[in-house]
């Protein structure tokens, strides 16, 4: 447990992604099986011990620590696992620390009735850092900023294997991933994935920089504003993966039930509605459905999900990814009628005369509230990641608004000494500035230095780490779309806001009004 505890400790305090990556790489290289497999599963939230819950830990603590002292401590610390780790008394005498796999085995074997005794005997053999790690492992919610994507990258880097292969294998092999490590270290063949609903890494697009590509070489489709998903049926199982390879099947039971074909599709997950070209609701509506473990009937009725299918990666046991887009498209059109039209439809290819015609249609995309266009090379196979010249995304131009800077906070990592996170607002009818968004990007390093100085020189008030700024600086903010939101006083929330220009020339009174932004709401 020592090594894993040390890793957790470093990850908690490290904000740099590259440093986190290096720490995990080092851990994977130098830790034996199956500890490293369990550890990485715990880091990515892939472990669940049904017999051990926060209530178990609280009840257990009550046997060793006064309840009132626990309550006061919990209130101060703000986290049950950490409070318990610090409060649990060190057991007297020398003790053999349990390893990660010993702890995992014991926790898996625990029943509801003996879970407290199992946890207690493990805690008695650990120091405070070890107890923290054990309790986080048991209760989940590590919160050390390690996504499945980062873990996979670390694995690829640790054993110098292609990330695409790791992406495919990862979700097909259960923790502690013994066959994955054996393959990574060259001790075994690549594991066989027949009859498994495994994840295929997504093909991604570059933004279109130069205009005027030839539509004889590229097919165009609308880019819908939902989330990219992959639905896979393999063996007897159907799974839905998001772009990062996280499984989100649980949130969309109706799609799982409706997908009854042996196939792999790539498409956009959307909610039925009017906003996007009269065919789909806004991204905001889809958000109501994301991240849920239990989906109520009401949710299913109010936000009915469907998938607009872009591509067919496999069907009836055949892998189509090596085929050119034209051929995959032909097979997709033939395949679509096999799926229930209530939940799956075909993304249409835009029949434009030439590039100018296409550009004109894109200009209309703002009214139709669609995100933009996708351009796909007709002769390209389906390959993982972003490859030059194969796929382009051509987003509609962003919206902009002139806003007034209201508050500023320091950034992280390299930006820790700079005020780089800005909250900005627009004028209400009553002449009051109301916050409409927050942005941390879009400016150059030179501009950041200037903004930092502006904040420091114009701070009438501080609230902890937050500086209130003299309401005098106008920022032109670019954003992809704007939605109604109950979370903010202005009733608005921007999507992808970034600072596009600093308008030192513009007086704050002339910044935009809330009403102007409301008119842009989709």
């Amino acid at each position, binding site marked *: 447990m020592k090594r894993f505890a040390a890793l957790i400790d470093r990850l908690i305090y490290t904000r740099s992604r590259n440093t986190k990556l290096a720490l995990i790489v080092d851990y994977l290289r130098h830790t034996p099986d199956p500890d490293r497999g369990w550890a990485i599963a715990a880091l990515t939230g892939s472990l669940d011990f049904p017999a051990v819950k926060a209530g178990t830990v609280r009840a257990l603590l009550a046997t060793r620590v006064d309840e009132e002292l626990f309550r006061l401590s919990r209130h101060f610390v703000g986290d049950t696992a950490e409070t318990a780790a610090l409060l649990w008394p060190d057991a007297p005498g020398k003790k053999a620390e349990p390893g990660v796999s010993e702890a995992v085995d014991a926790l898996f074997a625990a029943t509801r009735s003996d879970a407290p005794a199992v946890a207690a005997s493990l805690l008695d053999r650990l120091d*405070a850092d070890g107890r923290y790690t054990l309790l986080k492992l048991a209760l989940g919610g590590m919160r050390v900023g390690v996504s499945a994507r980062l873990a996979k990258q670390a694995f690829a880097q640790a054993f110098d294997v292609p990330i695409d292969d790791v992406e495919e294998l990862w979700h097909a092999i259960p923790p502690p991933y013994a066959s994955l490590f054996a393959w990574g270290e060259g001790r075994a063949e690549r594991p066989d994935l027949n009859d498994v609903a495994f994840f295929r890494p997504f093909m991604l697009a570059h933004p279109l920089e130069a205009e005027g590509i030839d539509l004889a070489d590229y097919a165009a489709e609308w880019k819908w504003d939902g989330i990219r998903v992959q639905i896979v049926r393999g063996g007897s199982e159907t799974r839905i993966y998001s772009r990062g390879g996280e499984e989100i099947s649980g949130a969309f039971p109706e799609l799982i039930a409706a997908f009854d074909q042996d196939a792999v599709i790539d498409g956009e997950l959307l909610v039925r509605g009017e906003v996007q070209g009269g065919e789909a609701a806004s991204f905001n509506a889809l958000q109501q459905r994301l991240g849920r473990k239990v989906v109520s009937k009401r949710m299913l009725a109010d936000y009915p999900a469907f998938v607009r299918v872009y591509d067919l990666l496999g069907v009836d046991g055949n892998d189509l990814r090596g085929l050119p887009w034209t051929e995959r498209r032909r097979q997709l059109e033939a395949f679509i009628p096999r799926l229930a039209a209530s939940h799956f439809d075909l993304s249409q290819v835009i029949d434009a005369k030439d590039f100018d015609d296409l550009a004109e249609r894109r200009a209309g995309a703002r009214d139709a509230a669609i995100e933009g266009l996708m351009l796909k090379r007709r002769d390209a196979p389906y390959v993982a990641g972003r490859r030059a010249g194969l796929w382009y995304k051509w987003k509609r131009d962003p919206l902009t608004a002139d806003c007034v800077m209201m508050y500023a906070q320091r950034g992280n990592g390299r930006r820790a000494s700079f005020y780089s996170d800005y909250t900005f607002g627009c004028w209400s009818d009553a002449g009051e500035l109301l916050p409409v968004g927050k942005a941390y990007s879009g400016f150059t390093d030179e501009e950041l230095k200037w903004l930092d100085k502006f904040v420091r020189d114009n701070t009438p008030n501080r609230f902890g780490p937050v500086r209130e700024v003299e309401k005098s600086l106008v920022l032109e903010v670019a954003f992809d779309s704007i939605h109604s939101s109950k979370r903010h006083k202005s009733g608005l929330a921007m999507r992808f806001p970034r600072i596009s220009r600093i308008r030192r020339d513009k007086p704050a009174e002339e910044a935009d009004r809330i009403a102007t932004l409301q008119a842009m709401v989709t």
Partner: protein
Amino acid sequence: MAKTGTWIEPHPGGIYVKPADLWIDPSRPVECAAVTHGHADHARSGHGAVFATPGTLAIMALRYGVDAGASHNRAYAYGDGFERGGVRFSFHPAGHVLGSAQILMEYAGERIVVTGDYKRRPDPTCAPFEVVPCDIFVTEATFGLPVFRHPPTEGEIAKLIGAVRAEPDRSVLVGAYALGKAQRVIAELRRAGWEAPIFIHGALEKMCNLYAAHGVDLGELRLVSETGKAAMAGQIVLAPPAALNDRWSRRLPDPVTAMASGWMRVRQRARQRMVELPLVISDHADWDELTATIAEVNPGETWITHGSEDGLLRWCELVQRKARALHLVGRDLEEEA
């Protein structure tokens, strides 16, 4: 014998000793003040007369412009004291910072000890805490919750040295309170064999000099402001906590941000302060020290001045000790713990 403690009055702004017409650690200017130690939440300027140890008086002269040489201000060595209004006052080591003292008062057959701030573990920069038997023990409770158990200082210092050696291209910037903590960290580094010059923020210079003048060997110190960026790679730099993530730190080579404080025991606290290397080094007694000290002093009553009073009060209740919380205000716990 006087009725227990009736001759002293705890007020939000200090403890008033009635027969002597004297205040202990008053937060506002008074005619006559006895001061436990030099931290700003206990020592203020503007008093008519100050009674304190020589170390504390020197610190007050440096920080608050108190005239240490003036005849109305009196310095007393540990064990010494004075009598006023029938009350016998004496100063005893508290182990908190240079010059820190507990104040023992004896009046009408009753003994009261006011600890000020204290700790029990060894500190190379000040005299160790002495147990002074008394009837009423007036104690601090900064870390009066059982989650606060400071690990051995040597281990934290080893962590710091390990971090510097692990990344020779970066400096490690340690946030440490300017009075006490900074000098203790430096002295502990020297004890652990760190012989390289230690680089300091200008705000630490005078206090380090004062410690050195009182016989605390801090080795070679250099000012960051007089050093080039490259020379601080692979070195240890100390600054007041407020300078950690401020513009000042941009002059250091890609610093690893560390912080020496008892609060670092709680991970969320450390994360809030954007600390990458938390060092649990405190000048205050942790939970075990607080409870062990009360048991050892074994007073008739325990009065708790500031910190997590509720936690320590609960403990006293559990072990059936008579105790009360005084709710003194204006104690600046966050910065110097």
